[in-house]
């Protein structure tokens, strides 16, 4: 779109190139197929949600409750299996639950008119609480084999179903966002909800659709999580929201809405995954990993800003 965005993405490509080069030269195992599969597999649920989070943040909102919806849907799945109902039914119920949880968020945000940060902060706490209510101190295992296989085994090659779900989401959401009328509405509302309203756009409807989608996709991610780990517990997916938001912001999506691209987010996802994987292979602890990503996040905005300023001063 604008020049700045283009340069942001080229910056990301540069960072990605450097990270990959460093990883290849310093971590011999990096390029192995298994490692490349693991690299996605380990964070697959986060990156799936990052796709819809991109739309939500471009829309000028935020959804902090995604990880709690994931947790609650995973725990609901566990509970349903535990009482002996078939897994296929459980899957449907959980997806429905996710959509409902998203709709509850949407209700407070669009109908009552409370800022999404506040609403989803409360539902972050509340939904997680219901996961606790369901499972208390239990963990649930014993899911059907086909379900577990779905989460773990390769569907084509060694790539599991969840990977294709991610790819499909990236493709469709990126077309929706950048090529369709709905996407244009998302951008416009993010830019100025008032202008959008005055232009006859149905602001509440667009927002509701996004939050409901977010609920559904988070529930799906929760199911992938349950399948991959073959077990659920009350703390499933705890704290994932910050990682997801970090990826989206590093992708150049403006936290104030109205700006960003799916390409940027995909690049940023690749960077974060590569970086984490590379550091893990170099035996760097979790704290340092998080700190490095934090520094990268700040630096990726700070350095272009500084360069811009230097340029304007020197000319």
């Amino acid at each position, binding site marked *: *779109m*604008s020049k700045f965005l283009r340069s942001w993405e080229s910056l990301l490509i540069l960072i990605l190139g450097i990270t990959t080069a460093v990883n290849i030269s310093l971590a011999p195992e990096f390029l192995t197929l298994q490692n490349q599969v693991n690299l996605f597999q380990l964070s697959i649920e986060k990156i799936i949600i990052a796709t819809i989070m991109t739309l939500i943040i471009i829309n000028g909102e935020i959804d902090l409750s995604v990880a709690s919806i994931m947790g609650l849907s995973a725990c609901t799945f566990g509970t349903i299996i535990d009482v002996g109902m078939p897994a296929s039914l459980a899957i449907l119920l959980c997806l429905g639950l996710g959509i409902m949880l998203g709709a509850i968020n949407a209700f407070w945000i669009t109908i009552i008119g409370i800022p999404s940060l506040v609403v989803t902060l409360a539902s972050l706490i509340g939904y997680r609480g219901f996961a606790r209510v369901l499972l208390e101190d239990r963990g649930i295992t014993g899911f059907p084999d086909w379900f577990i296989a779905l989460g773990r085994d390769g569907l084509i090659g060694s790539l599991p179903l969840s990977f294709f779900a991610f790819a499909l989401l990236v493709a469709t959401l990126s*077309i929706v966002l950048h*090529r*369709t*009328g*709905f996407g*244009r*509405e998302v*951008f*416009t509302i993010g*830019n*100025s909800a*008032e*202008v*959008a*309203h*005055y*232009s*006859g*756009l*149905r602001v509440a409807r667009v927002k509701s659709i996004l939050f409901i989608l977010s609920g559904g996709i988070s529930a799906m991610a929760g199911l992938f999580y349950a399948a991959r780990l073959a077990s659920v517990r009350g703390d499933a997916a705890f704290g994932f929201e910050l990682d997801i938001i970090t990826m989206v912001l590093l992708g150049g999506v403006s936290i104030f809405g*109205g*700006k960003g691209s799916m390409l940027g987010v995909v690049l940023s996802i690749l960077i974060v995954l590569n970086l984490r994987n590379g550091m893990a292979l170099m035996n760097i602890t979790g704290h340092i990993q998080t700190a490095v990503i934090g520094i990268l996040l700040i630096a990726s905005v700070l350095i272009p800003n500084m360069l811009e300023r230097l340029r*304007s*001063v020197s*000319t």
Partner: protein
Amino acid sequence: MISPPLAGERSTIVSHPILELRHISKSFGMTAAMADVSIAILPGQVHAIVGENGAGKSTLIKILTGVHQPDEGEMLVDGKQMQIRSTEDAQKHGIAAIFQEPMVFPDLDVAENIFISHHNLGLVMNWATQYQHANEIIARLGITLDPRRLANGLTLAEQQTVEIARALSLNVRALIMDEPTASLSAHEVDRLVQIVEALKMRGVAVIYISHRLEEIFRIADTVTVMRDGKHISTKPISQVTQQGMVRDMVGRSINHFSMKVAANAHGEKILSVRNLTRDGVFSDVSFDLHIGEVLCFAGLIGSRRTDVGLALFGVEPATSGYIEVARQPVTIDSPQSALKYLIAYVSEDRRKFGLALNMPIFANISLPSLKKLLRLFGLIDRKAEIAMAESHRERLSIRTPNVTIDVGKLSGGNQQKVMLAKWLETEPRILIFDEPTRGIDIGAKTEVHNIIRELAIRGVAIIVISSDLPEVLMLADRVLVMREGRQMGIFDISEATQENIMALATGQTAAMSQ
């Protein structure tokens, strides 16, 4: 702190300029907004700057006040070279500005809005005295505004007066006004002119930008014309004619100023409004609108004309009353429902309600008519979209390298044109313009007037809310006058004069207005 200017106090003998720009250039990417401009500002004088939209006037102001840094050239304050890095810096040098787009703090009350950036009022607030001072300044401006009211919800005109009050209270040596009267009506303009006169007496240098040429002739001592970022001429007002000034502005002679043409032949009744009321805001507005007719709403600022427009567009629905479109009773409770009946509304506040500033021109133009561009699976036809934007760019002569740049980067007048384009594209049956020519230059103003008339001829029913009385008289077939939320009367254009409209608008009886 706030000493009212004393009438009769004579300005000291003018010797050297307070402010001087020498060979200033500034470009934004490819656009050269200012190229090698030099001017000197003398104390006790009103220095008007005129030019077409995008000529670089606002850029000049922003450089004088430190919002932008020049690429080249130097600035002198009191004959000494200075760098002004921020508006704070500028204020320290005694320079303050009223910017083109009013900027208030919605969460602060009017009084705080006026005094927030004062540096010498002491550490501790005294709310009571602050309100008192605010009242004094507001009174001088001749408007009614409660200093305790939050700025949130002020109309554009009210915001502009708050900004004027803020600048006046600063006790400056050089005051820059970028289209201060763009949304004021004649009444308030008169007061402003008086205040400017008084400032002049005290030796304040005033830089005055306006597209209303008659104002320039009223108050300016010197006129500088800019075109395409270049300095064209600086002359004492006595040596300037309107024709000559316009020629300098556009680079050629224009003769076809807006002129009143005979009223259109009206068609059928398309809109009928009866006793439209929004509780506590306006009440009992009733009128009919016919195909091909231009109905103008006149009134002072805050007379709630905009609110009637908003009600008809469904943004702030009316609480009672009756609306009929094409003889069908309708309820309009949202912009979508208004658009469904092919009613469009061009807001007076382009930055807040009109344009998504960080989106490209084409996306802004296509926004309300996006449906036309949708193809299979809801994909947007990009080519058609660009073509749509290009056609408007040509028709309205929007000054921009291309239609893919962000609207926010255009000059104020060009933004206004983009907003007009956006609503023209919806091809409505009923089109409400709220201050349609706010901030656009006379060339373009003529163009807009022509467009409005053309639309009317083509069968669109038009409502124009305008504070610009000459404009009202020129465009209208009928004039509806409002005052404090009430409809004071409707004139046929044949009976309407500036005097009788103002008399109704200010609440004087017809007898008193002789």
